[in-house]
């Protein structure tokens, strides 16, 4: 179920240039049709209607998927890599390095994530790139902590002792025994975050931290919001629905993965 939605949405993102005529010069910007403002769905040429500034909703939704894919893939891959490196250093080496790194992590975790990302993005100025930077700056901490905990846990397994007994080196034990066995919850978390990142990104752009007119779902919801009192519900509804679908799909898959991979659930 979740997987089907993911395939559909990602397919839509990848095929965006085929499904629509890309806007020039920047296809990530919605094309403006100044002759058709606030058109309801079903208008010829604008099957899902237009925004207050004449943006085509369908184009926004399709290219918004591309934006979301870009956002989530970049943020998740950067944060997983940084988090794994820092968490490994702390968990595997332990001692003072661990204490210092974990205090830094604690400081980062003491600021609620959306507010932190919001503040960073605000300081950097409104753009998608800055949103990506801001979310990445906040998210790596979670992975660092997760990986560290996992490594400390996995390190106690007897197969690590067994590898020491046959005389393997510390680095190889880390690479062959500890890290691979620590990754499962990280993979689950990364999957969940593919959805979560888009949710936060959309919130930031909803508040107004993306470029105006960007083909992005949060921007669309924000643009549509002003027309709600006038009964123009479609822009916000469709765009918000896409965010919901995207995030729901990754949550479903992440949850299913957790159930399958969680050793505690074995035999239940």
């Amino acid at each position, binding site marked *: 179920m979740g997987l089907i939605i993911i395939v559909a949405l990602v397919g839509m993102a990848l095929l965006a240039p085929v499904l629509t005529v890309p806007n020039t010069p920047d296809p990530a910007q919605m094309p403006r049709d100044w002759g058709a403002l606030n058109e309801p769905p079903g208008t010829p040429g604008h099957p899902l209607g237009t925004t207050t500034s004449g943006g085509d909703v369908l184009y926004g939704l399709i290219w918004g998927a591309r934006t979301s894919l870009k956002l989530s893939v970049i943020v998740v891959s950067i944060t997983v890599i940084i988090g794994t490196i820092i968490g490994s250093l702390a968990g595997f080496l332990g001692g003072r390095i661990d204490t210092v790194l974990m*205090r830094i992590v604690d400081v980062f975790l003491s600021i*609620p994530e959306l507010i932190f990302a*919001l*503040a960073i993005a605000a*300081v950097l100025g409104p753009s998608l790139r800055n949103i990506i930077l801001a979310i990445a700056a906040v998210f790596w901490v979670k992975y660092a902590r997760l990986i560290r905990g996992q490594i400390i846990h996995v390190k106690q397994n007897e197969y690590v002792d067994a590898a020491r007994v046959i005389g393997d080196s510390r680095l190889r034990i880390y690479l062959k025994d500890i890290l691979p066995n620590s990754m499962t919850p990280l993979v689950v978390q990364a999957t969940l975050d593919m959805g979560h990142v888009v949710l936060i990104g959309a919130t930031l752009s909803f508040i107004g931290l993306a470029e105006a007119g960007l083909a992005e779902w949060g921007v669309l*919801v924000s643009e549509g919001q002003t027309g*709600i009192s006038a009964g123009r519900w479609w822009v916000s509804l469709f765009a918000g629905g896409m965010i919901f679908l995207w*995030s729901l799909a990754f949550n479903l898959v992440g949850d299913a993965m957790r159930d399958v991979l969680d050793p505690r659930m074995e035999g239940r």
Partner: protein
Amino acid sequence: MQVRDYVARRLMILPLLIVGTSIIVFALSRVGGSPIAIYLSHEMTADEVAEIEERYGVNEPLPVQYLAWAAGALRGDLGWSGVSSAPVRQIFPKKLAASAELAVAAGLVAVALGISLGTFAGARRDRWPDHFARIFSISGASMPVFWFGILLLILFWVILGIAPIGRSDPGVFARIAHPTGVYTIDAILAGDAGALWDAIWHLILPAITLGYGTTAIITRMMRSSLVEELGEDYVDAARAKGLPERIVLRRHARRNALIPTVTVVGLSFGFLLQGTVVVEIIFRYPGLGRWLADAVLRGDRATIMAYVLFTSVLFLLINLIVDVLYAYLDRRVVLGE
């Protein structure tokens, strides 16, 4: 470790964390542009700019600037709020009262609803209440808060035309005094039932919007920890004593399942805080969140810094309380790193 030692240790680390957080906040104000940009304009001469720089001390070395700022923050001087055209310390309490009212209302409902729904679902594992709770919690976790708010608005305001916007009816607002700034409490103090109803009426939709995600998280946690506890031997032992299922659930399983849920309740406070930003935008609710959103759009760094600093310290304190509570509740827990 004893619970007492653990608490003492946490209290010792707390100032460290607060200082760390304040450094981050300070760093934020110095990244990507001058902190005084909001006071400058194109017409100013270099001398005028230099004078402003001098006045705000921005040509000093960064550590000195930090110390000056931190000392000010300790005294309660959080700078000048550009968006409100007033000192931050003056505006802050009013906004805080508004947001606190909203967040507490949402939080209470979320905790009560989440725990009961989670218990109900966990006790009926793999039957329809469980499936319902799963759909409820997964969609709650995936729901963009702003979209959910808009959906409610479309339904209750646009279609049914019954939901209010803002924080209170202007007439009612003028009728009573507002000593606390928390309108429900103000209404009770004034003994005005109409005003109380008005305050609650304006709270309902924003609180539901804000609380949904949190309810979903608590439901999910409660459900899974209850399922886990129900698989423990002591639950079978309780059944083997002849206790009715209701008491096995209430006295044994739920009590232990609540322990891990406590941590989530603490964390979810962060969700509530950050959720106020969008909820207040959508419902035109004049609280901290909307203030922050305005500040963000206008590049008003003093306001942003004050807000981030305040929420982080609050968040730290709440998590401290939760951890201590957890340590106290869970007698099995091995305290320490």
